[in-house]
């Protein structure tokens, strides 16, 4: 069940982060931290979900490129 709890927790945390970003008045530094955390969570989930981590690399690269 460990796996499952992580997916659920990850989703909860992601939704919380999204909520905070959408509603809250997060300052830029905190925002960056939160977005980094969100990316890490997505990466963990994606790794667990899929055989390959190419997809995850793509996501991270995409994110990094767009926000340089």
């Amino acid at each position, binding site marked *: *069940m460990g796996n*499952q709890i992580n997916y659920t927790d990850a989703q909860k945390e*992601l939704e919380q*982060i*999204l909520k905070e970003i959408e509603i809250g008045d997060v300052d*830029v530094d905190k925002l960056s931290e939160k977005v980094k955390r969100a990316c890490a969570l997505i990466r963990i989930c994606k790794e*667990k*979900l899929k055989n*390959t981590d190419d997809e995850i690399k793509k996501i991270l690269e995409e994110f990094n490129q767009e926000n340089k």
Partner: protein
Amino acid sequence: MSNIANSKTEYFSLSSISGMVESMFNEKFGNKLFWITAEISSLHIHKGHCYISFIEKTKGTDEIKTEIKGIIWLQNYSRINYNFKTITGIEIKENTKILFLAKVSFDTKYGLNLIVEEIDPSYTIGQMLIERENVVRLLKEKGYYELNKNKDFPLVPQRIAVISAETSRGYEDFREKLLTNKYHYKFQIKLFQSLLQGEKAGEDMRNRLIEIFNEIHLFDIVVIVRGGGGNVNLTCFNNYRLAEAIARFPIPIITGIGHTANISVADEVAFKDCITPTDVSDFIITKCLEFDNKLMNIFEKIKTRFNEKMTNQLHKTDNQMSMLISSTNILIKKQLTFNDTQFIRFVNSANIIIAEQNNKIGLIVQKITDKIPNYIKERLSIINSQKLIFRPIISNFMEHKIKLLNNRLYALKAISDKIFTNNKRFTDDALIYITLNSKKIIEKAEKNMILTEEKIKILDPVNVLKRGYSITLKDGKNIKSADMLNEGDEVKTILFNGEVKSKII
């Protein structure tokens, strides 16, 4: 009948008795056909003939009330069986309740038999449904019915316990479809081999569920799949014990057991009935995809919001920057203006100082210029007062000298002015310069004056007079020629010592 009972001495062969029974049966039933309902308690095929044991149970107690043997002859069996199987989906087998058309026959050799001519499958279907409904009703009564359905389905069902058979086509399809999914989701599958049809299948599957339960922490969901083959006995899936185990199972169970007409109780109480094994795979993959999409959706949203915020921040920063720049500009301008004002003030002060200095210089110059004529005037007045009478004689000379002095004075003034105007900034130096020069000029002028005075002194008529010369004046004018005089003119003769008035004769 009483005859037979009472005549104890009379013996009958078995066959004669059975013959009597047979004739009675023939008399009573003949070839009459009856629709009879009964449950099959046992069944066996011998040489193509089907030998059945029919029973009837007492309602509620399940106690056998009646038992009669029956036969489906070879010539009827295949037709009846085929028909029954097609319609009910099950074989004619033990524990099946059937409605059949039969002759009641008594054979001297085989005894009492029901000769089955026809079976009505719809009755069996109805009976099965009733049984099925009883199972469902019982599950509902016990509160198990909704239990598995109400389980939370895992976000990502990746660890799967499968109840099936390795040789089952359904298991193969399920596995293949799941493991070769185009999204590359990974899955762990553990197979729990079980019977999937027949009387014992229900209990077997239940035992597999118990095995899975013992290592429940390893699994997210349970899948029951079977496939291949059309109308087989799936009544095992209506088995109460299996249905209860499924309903009460702590993790979701998905079925793909390929039913046709009526779904089984197992399907009904399971978390999800997917009908076919490949549909089970699709369902699982879809769940993973949903989560995956959810992640991507959140990711996109976060990214969008993040980018928005960053852009806003950039704008904000830009605005702040331009605000800063404009305020700085204003400040600088103010500062500049201030500096300008200060500069102007400075220049003004400088001007004032210069003006003051100029004034001072002016005053000095004035003093100098004042002094020079005063000096000359003084000198002149001395001369005038002393030698007033010689003035007419020397006046020209004096005037000339005065003019010269004045010219010099003007030149001096002009030079001073020029110097002052040209050297405003160096007023002090200029002042010193001017002062020094003025002194020299004045000294020079003074020297000149003295020289002039001496010259004048030399020319002074007094000195001439001293030497015995005299000056003759007529009407104040000195007479240089006798032509200027006429007879009777009065003249004044100035001597070194005194004057003489005389008349021309």
